[in-house]
Structure formats: structure tokens, C-alpha cells
């Protein structure tokens, strides 16, 4: 079991290629089975390491046996463990949803596995260039996934996504180059050891590195002026891919921000202007995202803007930088990944039934689709932050952390954000319950919706309630992550 950390990354990658070989096996759902195995085995490996990690330890693995400053090391500590667990959990959920609509789609499962292995890799690695490589693996797989159905608008969206993300990664590479020039190392821990001294001697260059990283992670996580790719890509991508994007790929930017900012600048910059910068950018993101979601008429676009707004909440938690703020931020990352993935599932089911994307065309669908409407209501209540669902707990922590800092201006905006969230979700819900009968799109054939799609939304709806009632279970996983961030 000594090789567990690398196996967690490699097994999904291996499975990705094996899915193509299932063509030669007389198995009914070969690709799906391989994909599920490719996620369950790493999950089992991860959980086998769980006890030690939750107790506060970490597992380090040196690739090729070379010790850290020279070789690449993979480390599973509290933060990586939390994110890796989330990635595999949401990944399995996406596979569950896909079971019904992507039958014999080997390419789809293969790309999904590559993307997940990319996320797992960048979450586990401690080598900053290695992180860049995994970012690119994830990015390339997700570009193809967005354009998977070859719809013209999806291809266009994918192109936009490609250009903007690549611009982000070029900036990140530049930051890596500068850091390497300064420290002569690519290992995060050894860079972190030297960075304080460099900051004392020459703060300007550290500012430059910080700004480059801020912008590149900001593009990835959808911070305000950098969010422009999100609505288009989320609304055009196939439904499970929208869930993947919103649930996991946006969180990757947040992970990088948490990991690198707190490791490199935790004792210097974040305590000064940088923390405030993240905080106020988060506030702007959350209010403007909510404002734009309020006036969207396309359901998937509304959900995309809602993602931006919720990321704003997380950024507020991160920007506060206190233990409570991080607790709220990490919890909200988890909640948002779970809920938003399922909300996209609901949107996908509804759209596949009526053929329209616009909310104004979804009047009165609750009579035909009571199950989906019910889970949509539960999920949107959860993300608004209505107790006793999980969103309430994370928003409570964020509010509490902001109040503890006596930052009343931010409180006003958080108040506005929560209220606007309620406004745009209830706008959708009341359309669903409208007395009018909905009309199918002319000559549109409703696609059959199987039990798997519904099941995936119900599972999340139940999870929302359970996590809301017993938040301690999740907090147990968050606590070691905070210990990593704030030693």
C-alpha cells in the first residue's frame, strides 16, 4: 500500500484508456463499469489513508524514490484529502447521471476519467510545475468534453474557454518561472521556506508573482472581471459536463488559491492587502453574479451565474483568512459542488423533456415532472441557505466569521447576496408551479429519461438534508484541511 498516492492518480488515467478497449469485450456496459471501477478503486485507496490524515498526519510519496527538493513528491494532507474525496464523490455522481444518457459512449467516459485524474493529480502534487501539467491535462480534457456533442454553439463556447484558460495558464507559467528564478526550486515546500526572506529583501517581485497567480486562478474559479467564460460554457456544455465544470473545475481554481496563497504568502501578504483584495473581489463577485443571475432567462445560464455568485461567498470566506472563515469557505465549496452538480442534472432532465432552455417556457412543469421539481426545490432551498439544509451551515459560518471581524460593509453585501439568491431561485420555482400548461417545442421529441438521472438528483437532495442535520460529519474532514492552511 506504499504506492497508494500515485495509484490514486494513475488508476483513473489507466481506466481512461481501458474504456476504449471495452470495444473488444462482449460486455453490455463495459465502458461504464470500467469508469466506475476507475473511480471506486482510488476512492477506496484514499479512504484507506483517511484515518491517519484526519488525525492530522500526511502521507508523502516520492516519485522514483527521489526526495523532495529534487524529485516530484505527492502528498496527501488534510486539504488534498478533502478535495480528492470531493472530486471522487462528485465524479461518481456524474457517472451515475451519465449512465442513462451516454450508452456505449467510450470516448465520453475516457475523457471524464482523464479530467478527474488531472484534478486528482493537481490536488495531490507538491511540485508547482507538476501542478501546471495536471492543470493542462484537466483543461484539455474539459475542452473536448464541452464540445463533445459537436453542437456549433458548444464548439464556439469551447473555443472561448480554451483561449481564456490558456491565457490563465501562460500567466501561471510565468509566475512559476519567476519563482524558480528566485528560489531555484519547483517544490512548493522549499519555495515556501525561502519566500519570506525574498519578501523582506524585495517585496516588489513577490507582488508580481502574487498578481499573476491571482489573475490566473481567478479566471479558473470565476472571480468577477474574469468570469466571462463561465456562463457561455456552462450553458452550452452537455449536462453532466456542466456539472463537472461547476462542481469541480471551478473548485480547482479555489484549491490552487488556498494551497499556494496560504503556503507562500500566508504569513506575509495575505495578512495585509492581499487578503483584503480577495475579500473585496469576492464581495463584488457575489453581488454582481447574483444581479446577473436575476435577469437571466436561460435556466442553465442562471445556474452558471449562480455558481459565480456562490464562488463569491467562498472567496469572502477565504479572504477573511480566519479559522471560521476558512471553515465556512471550505464547507461552502463542498456544498456548492454537491448542490450545483445536482441542479444542473435537474436542468438537464427538464430541458431534455420540453426542448426549451428558457425559464419562461417551463411554466407548470411540476404536474408532469413532480420528482424533478421537488428535488429542484430542495436543492435551491439548500443553496439559498435555508435551514435545515447544508447551505445554511456554510453561510452561517461565513456570516459569523465576517461579524467576528466587525466588517459591517461586507455583512451588508452578504445580506444582499443571500436575498438575491433567494429571489432568483424562487423566480424559477414559481414558474414551475405556474397554473399554465407547458408546451413542447414544435416537432421536438422528448428524450427518454431513465431512473438513473432521477436517482442522482434524489441522492443529492437527501444528502443535502443529511449534511444540514449532521454537519459535524463534514466538519471532521474540513478541520485537518484548516490545520494545513493555518498551521
Amino acid at each position, binding site marked *: 500500500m506504499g504506492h497508494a498516492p500515485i495509484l490514486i492518480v494513475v488508476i483513473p488515467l489507466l481506466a481512461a484508456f481501458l474504456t476504449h478497449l471495452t470495444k473488444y469485450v462482449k460486455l453490455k456496459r463495459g465502458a461504464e463499469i470500467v469508469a466506475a471501477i476507475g473511480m471506486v478503486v482510488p476512492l477506496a485507496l484514499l479512504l484507506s489513508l483517511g484515518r491517519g490524515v484526519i488525525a492530522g498526519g500526511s502521507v508523502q510519496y516520492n516519485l522514483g524514490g527521489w526526495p523532495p527538493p529534487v524529485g516530484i513528491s505527492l502528498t496527501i494532507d488534510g486539504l488534498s484529502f478533502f478535495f480528492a474525496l470531493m472530486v471522487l464523490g462528485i465524479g461518481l455522481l456524474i457517472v451515475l447521471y451519465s449512465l442513462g444518457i451516454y450508452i456505449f459512449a467510450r470516448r465520453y467516459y475516457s475523457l471524464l476519467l482523464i479530467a478527474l485524474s488531472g484534478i486528482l493529480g493537481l490536488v495531490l502534487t507538491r511540485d508547482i510545475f507538476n501542478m501546471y501539467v495536471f492543470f493542462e491535462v484537466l483543461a484539455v480534457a474539459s475542452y473536448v468534453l464541452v464540445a463533445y456533442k459537436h453542437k456549433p454553439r458548444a464548439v464556439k463556447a469551447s473555443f472561448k474557454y480554451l483561449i481564456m484558460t490558456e491565457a490563465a495558464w501562460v500567466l501561471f507559467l*510565468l509566475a512559476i518561472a519567476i519563482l524558480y528564478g528566485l528560489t531555484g526550486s519547483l517544490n512548493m515546500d522549499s519555495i515556501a521556506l525561502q519566500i519570506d526572506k525574498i519578501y523582506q529583501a524585495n517585496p516588489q517581485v513577490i507582488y508580481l508573482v502574487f498578481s499573476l497567480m491571482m489573475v490566473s486562478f481567478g479566471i479558473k474559479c470565476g472571480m468577477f472581471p474574469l468570469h466571462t467564460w463561465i456562463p457561455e460554457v456552462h450553458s452550452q456544455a452537455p449536462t453532466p459536463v456542466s456539472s463537472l465544470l461547476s462542481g469541480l473545475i471551478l473548485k480547482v481554481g479555489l484549491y490552487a488559491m488556498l494551497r499556494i496563497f496560504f503556503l507562500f504568502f500566508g504569513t506575509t501578504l495575505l495578512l495585509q492587502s492581499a487578503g483584503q483584495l480577495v475579500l473585496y473581489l469576492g464581495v463584488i463577485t457575489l453581488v454582481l453574479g447574483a444581479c446577473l443571475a436575476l435577469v437571466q432567462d436561460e435556466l442553465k445560464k442562471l445556474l452558471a451565474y449562480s455558481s459565480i455568485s456562490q464562488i463569491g461567498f467562498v472567496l469572502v470566506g477565504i479572504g477573511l483568512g480566519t479559522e471560521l472563515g476558512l471553515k465556512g469557505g471550505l464547507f461552502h465549496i463542498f456544498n456548492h459542488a454537491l448542490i450545483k452538480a445536482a441542479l444542473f442534472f435537474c436542468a438537464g432532465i427538464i430541458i431534455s423533456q420540453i426542448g426549451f432552455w428558457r425559464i419562461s417556457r417551463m411554466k407548470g412543469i411540476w404536474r408532469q415532472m413532480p420528482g424533478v421539481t421537488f428535488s429542484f426545490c430542495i436543492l435551491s432551498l439548500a443553496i439559498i441557505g435555508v435551514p435545515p439544509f447544508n447551505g445554511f451551515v456554510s453561510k452561517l459560518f461565513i456570516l459569523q466569521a465576517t461579524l467576528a471581524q466587525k466588517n459591517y460593509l461586507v455583512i451588508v453585501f452578504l445580506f444582499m447576496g443571500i436575498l438575491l439568491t433567494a429571489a432568483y431561485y424562487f423566480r424559477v420555482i414559481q414558474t414551475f408551479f405556474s397554473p399554465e400548461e407547458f408546451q413542447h417545442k414544435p416537432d421536438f421529441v422528448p428524450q427518454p429519461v431513465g431512473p438513473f438521472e432521477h436517482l442522482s438528483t434524489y441522492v443529492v437532495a437527501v444528502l443535502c438534508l443529511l449534511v444540514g442535520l449532521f454537519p459535524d460529519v463534514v466538519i471532521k474532514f474540513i478541520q485537518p484541511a484548516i490545520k494545513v492552511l493555518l498551521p
Partner: protein
Amino acid sequence: MINGINIGIVVVLVGIYGLLTKRNIIKMIMSLCIMNSGVILFFISIGYVFGGQAAIFEDSSSLMVDPLPQAVMLTAIVIGLGVTALALALAIKIYDEYKTLDTNKLLEK
């Protein structure tokens, strides 16, 4: 002042200029490549030692350049190649569908 680091930065800025002003998506892909090349040049120049030679241990007393940036940039070049290929494939697809490569015109369709 003409060294690899400065030229690398200038090349990155040229790439950024291209991204911001060019409306043709092929030109935008080219700008992205230029930006990437600039960063690669920048990174390699950081590890370069004037008068050094490749780090192949025949004579350990001689001056040698830092091998790590070179190895790392080889990876980055490969990634850049892959991304460019994908971007061009998407561009072909877009042209097939819309018969234009202009981002402004694409917006209207």
C-alpha cells in the same frame, strides 16, 4: 540588455497584444503560441549560465547550465503543441459551421 529574459518578456507582451487586438481566431491561436514561446524562452533563460554547457556529467569541473528548466520546458512545449492542435481543430469546426473566423461576426450568429 538583449538577453533571453528580456526578450522573453517582450515576446509575451507581443502575444498579449495579439490576443487583445486580433479578431481572427487563427491569429488569436497564433498569439497564444507566441505568448507560450515567450514564457518558454524566459524560463530557459533563467536557468542559463553564461558560457556553460549541457549538464551531461563527463567533466564535473566545467561550468554547466541548469538542466531543470530545459527538462520542464520540454514538457511545456509538448503541452503547448497539444493545445494548439486542439484549438486549430476547434477553429476548423467553427469555420465549417459558421463560415467565418471573425470573433465579432461569430458573436452575432
